[in-house]
């Protein structure tokens, strides 16, 4: 079973995403801030990381940096508001994220993109 780590400080969103991905048969793990995210990447060794950008303690960009250094093959999906600066999104892409989903989003669309990455 594929392991997906969801790093998101909004409990509602993360729970909804978790519910949707569980329906597709993935094993999901929720963490609510950057520090927990970094620890979970090391301990869980997930097959996919879904992360927000603006979070407490460590931003999504810092998490991507960490993941690229320690787990270079793990794909990352960035889930973030459209209002956030374009340069942050570009930086995320430059760091090699697999996909970017702007909020507001459709969880079904996210599930399709996850499926495509694993395919």
């Amino acid at each position, binding site marked *: 079973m594929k392991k997906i780590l969801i790093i998101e400080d*909004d409990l509602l*969103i993360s*729970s*909804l995403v978790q*519910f949707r991905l569980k329906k597709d048969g993935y094993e999901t793990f929720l963490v609510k801030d950057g520090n927990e995210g970094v620890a979970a990447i090391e301990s869980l060794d997930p097959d996919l990381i879904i992360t927000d950008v603006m979070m407490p303690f460590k931003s999504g960009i810092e998490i991507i940096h960490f993941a690229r250094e320690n787990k270079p093959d793990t794909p990352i999906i960035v889930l973030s508001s459209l209002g956030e600066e374009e340069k942050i999104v570009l930086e995320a892409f430059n760091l090699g994220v697999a996909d970017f989903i702007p909020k507001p989003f459709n969880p*079904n669309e996210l599930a399709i993109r996850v499926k495509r990455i694993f395919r």
Partner: protein
Amino acid sequence: MRKTFTRISLFLTFFLCCINQVYSQDSIPFTDSISFFNFLKLQEEVPSLQFRYQAQPNVLTADLLADSTLSFSKREDGLWVSKAFTKFSDWEAAGKGLMAEDSSLVVPNFLIYEENSDLLAAQEYISNLWRNRDIFIPEKTPEVGEELVLLANLIPYEPLVKYRFHFFSDYKLVIVISIITFFLLMAIGMIIFMLIIKANHSRVEALKKEYENMIIGPISEILFEKSLEEIDALTEEDILKIFPEKHYKRKLFKLVLIENIISLNKKMKGDFKDKLKSLYKKFGLDIISISKLKNKRWDIVTNGLVHINEMDLVEALPKVKELTDSSNFYIRSQAISTVLNLSEKVDLSKIKEQSFPLSRWQQMNYLRIIKYLHIQKSLDLTPLFEGKNKTVRLFGYKLVRLLGRIELVEKLAEVAPNVADEEKIEILNTYEVIGINTEAFFINQCLRSENKDLMIAAARVSGTIGDQASAHILIELLDENPDFNTRRLLLDSLKKLDESMYNEYVSKNRDKDTLRIKTHLLDPLLQHV
């Protein structure tokens, strides 16, 4: 409040009366010369007061004059005075036989601070000492004999009640202690109040968290497992199967539901939004949101308006429209935003009817909504040109420019000559941005205006949408020798409008300022400076 004040006033009046009564009991212990001497007998000594005798010369015999105890001496006024005694008993003993002879010829005499004084002055001096509490009135003490028990029987029994109000007689101390007690009680009260509030707040927060956890699962399940039709068909019984009745009926639970559904609605898109809106109504949350519009607190009303706006509660539109001209800035701003969002057409009539001026923030907010909506809904801006207040009309002219509504230029041209100068400037800016060159006559009129701001605005736009007549007016204005900045603007517009006329003017006028402006305008680096 008034009752409490009356009670406090009555208490203070009563309290002051009591104090007054306590003081009025202590009166001066002598009223005439006899009681005065009796008092002195008891007192024995009074600070800075000395006693002596004053005698007429014919009273004194040779024996008296030779008496060393009295030591009479003659004063400057011819009267004889004895030596001064500090103790009253000494004075009395020394003159025992003397006073009996003839009281009019020998009288008591006093020295107050070594100054000669009569009986009245001495009485006044002692009264002052007594009033200032510098001396205390001596009390008669029973003579102590050998038979103490018999002596005790002579003193009547007196209960110790006379000291009952002794503490209260010191009113300053009472006031200080009362104030300290009051503040102490207030502090304790406030601490208790804060603790209660904090405990209550913590309890509500914990309950909210619990409800949130209770809500997330079922909401996710409904959103992913049920179609919109199935959600629409949900009954009260079905809902009570999803959420336990004891929680579902609680107000706080419904508030948490509102917060969560609105938060999800903001972050979701597609059919999830429709499902959330349907759920909002199924849970009866729309009634709570609409009822908030009747609240007296502006923040709750605004909150209700935000909910109505977010969840597209079109049925609340008539009530929302009633709030569009509210005296509260936040209520009317949010009400207009909601009307703009929910109306079938972009309903600008409510903005037109605004009696309050539109702030820049409001204009920006409405523009954002109108910009988004005018693509999908029909938008008629002309009512704004007839708006009640100037800011509404100015906003209308701005909208023509910002939305690029060229077809409204004709309407603008109709109103332009009859509006205030500030509005004319806004219309000129609109003409310039849209690039309308058919309104040169209006521009030329504005160029000749006595209002400098309007003239400058017209000069600026004449460079791009003026005509030949504008160029001539610009030269006329330059000949009036305006200040440096205006001169530079006029020359810049003239250069843009007619380069040959500009060159001719510059070649004729070779003053220092004109040459500086010419150099400036020719420098490509300073083009936009």
